[in-house]
């Protein structure tokens, strides 16, 4: 065993301060109230628009929780040591996923407003939709939505309870149990997120299909999840929480992940685009031709530059990843562009002439985001902010990027 000369043994508190916690909880609760009241008003005013805006908000936040689920499983399977001090934040975001069972209800309720294949009289006259009706029918859609959330919830809760039990027992058997769950879990989660993306987003344009679509959506979710964790950790740091346990080295690694996933997203997005461009078949190119109309073409260009080129050259620099202000700016920008990406996937199916912003876009997102945030904040207080029973904790605290 190496004795690290740099290790600082004076420990900070790994519990949330009661007054800070209450104040933040009140703010989140207020925003939640505001969001849902706005949603109710919006639903009465323009139910079509409400469901569309809500779908984007729901996808954005749910994919963040799913991204955390993916990363926690990967951390266990690879036995990564750098991530131990930030892992509890990932886990707490991840374990909010059962909420999706409730938050998905407006999407299921708005099925006839959102999905043309849900109208049986419309499908009857459409040979292609008729052929797809074994998968794309309202009953199967609803059942599948709950099956997805069930799969995610079982795995997330299992991993979370293992991790928190380890805080007390310090036993490695919890870690082994999670690793055992993670390998099949990763496969199941990837497949279910992929089909969920087919159901919830791709079927908005039911004649079109792309097999890489699920990975495209999940790549954005993974990126947004790293950005979210970075923002949460930096916010906690500003309030003097976890300022020593999560140090510059861990932020540097979070920055590397943001960079890596920016590249991965671009790789997947381009793979989809190039094949469709090359084949040039009418039933495939419709996806892009819809997004090159009117002001949508500027959004498409924004994604190329804002989702890849600019973050690529920004985050490739070591000094940016090691500058917490710059890293925060990058994380916030990435969260914004990931939302725009989903908006770009959903809205051109409805706003065919060009971008049409609506106040409900912001309000519906706020409702979903604050609900997930409330669950996160509630759960965060229950356990230590750092997995203190983890065998790799010391190694993580002393982690250095060479």
């Amino acid at each position, binding site marked *: 065993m190496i*004795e*690290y000369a*740099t290790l600082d043994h004076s420990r900070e508190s790994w519990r949330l301060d009661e007054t800070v916690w209450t104040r933040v909880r009140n703010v989140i609760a207020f925003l939640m109230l505001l969001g849902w009241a706005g949603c109710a008003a919006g639903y009465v005013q323009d139910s079509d628009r409400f469901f569309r805006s809500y779908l984007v908000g729901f996808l954005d936040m749910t994919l963040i929780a799913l991204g955390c689920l993916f990363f926690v499983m990967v951390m266990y399977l690879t036995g990564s040591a750098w991530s131990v001090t930030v892992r509890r934040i990932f886990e707490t975001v991840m374990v909010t996923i059962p909420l999706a069972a409730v938050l998905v209800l407006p999407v299921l309720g708005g099925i006839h407003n959102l999905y043309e294949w849900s109208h049986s009289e419309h499908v009857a006259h459409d040979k292609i939709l008729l052929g797809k009706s074994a998968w794309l029918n309202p009953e199967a859609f609803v059942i599948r939505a709950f099956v997805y959330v069930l799969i995610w919830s079982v795995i997330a809760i299992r991993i979370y309870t293992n991790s928190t039990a380890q805080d007390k027992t310090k036993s490695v058997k919890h870690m082994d149990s999670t690793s055992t769950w993670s390998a099949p879990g990763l496969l199941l989660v990837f497949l279910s997120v992929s089909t969920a993306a087919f159901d919830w987003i791709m079927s908005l344009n039911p004649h079109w299909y792309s097999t890489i679509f699920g990975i495209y959506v999940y790549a954005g979710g993974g990126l947004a999840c790293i950005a979210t964790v970075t923002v949460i950790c930096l916010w906690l740091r500003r309030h003097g929480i976890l300022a020593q346990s999560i140090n510059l080295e861990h932020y540097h690694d979070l920055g590397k992940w943001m960079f890596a996933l920016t590249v991965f997203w671009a790789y997947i997005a381009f793979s989809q*685009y190039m094949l469709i461009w090359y084949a040039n078949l009418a039933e495939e190119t419709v996806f892009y031709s819809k997004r090159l109309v009117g002001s949508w073409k500027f959004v498409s260009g924004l994604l190329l530059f804002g989702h890849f080129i600019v973050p690529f050259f920004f985050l490739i620099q070591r000094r940016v990843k090691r500058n917490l202000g710059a890293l925060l700016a990058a994380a916030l920008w990435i969260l914004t562009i990931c939302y725009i990406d989903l908006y770009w996937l959903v809205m051109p199916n409805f706003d065919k002439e060009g971008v049409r912003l609506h106040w409900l876009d912001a309000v519906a997102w706020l409702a979903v985001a604050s609900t997930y945030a409330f669950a996160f904040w509630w759960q965060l207080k229950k356990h230590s902010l750092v997995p203190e029973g983890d065998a790799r904790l010391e190694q993580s605290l002393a982690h250095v990027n060479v």
Partner: protein
Amino acid sequence: MENSSLPAALEQKELHGIAAAFESPDKLLKAAKAVRKSGFTKVEAYTPFPIHGIDDILGIPHSHLGRIVICCGAIGATAALSLIAWTGSGDPLLLPYWTGLGAYPLVVGGKPLFAFEPSIPITFELTVLLSAFGAVFGMFALNGLPQLYHPIFNFRHANRITDDQFVLVIEKADPKFDATECTRLLQELDPVSVEMVEE
């Protein structure tokens, strides 16, 4: 502890520096700190594995490898795009100078003679290839590899550097170097042995 004195024979040979072996990375770090504090700048550490924090203590600046890699990557991207534009279009977008100079305009699948879409995979591959070359060969160059001889092998326990000993050397090139003074300093730092190493 083995004491070293100055044998007359050694004085005839060129001196590389004074080496001290330590039994743990901790002791090495402490010794390196003390030596640097005494004002020595040409100090080198030899260890069986990377030790966190030693770069800072020895004042080793951050590697320039990243800059070499990005330059190679940029060359790769430019080369790929120019090559495709030149061979594909005959009226190249990027190199008007080569117009009509043995290009191979060929219409494939009704696509334009030059388009970015199908050029990206080749551009990507060439960028990655040249970046990887830059990283590997740049690392060799910056490390001065391949190197067939190094004075540290004259250290009696040199083979243990790849096993269980941590060695610190104050080199003769240091402006403050003085053989007896350095030996005395290193001996105070709890080493296993201190030795003179010839060039």
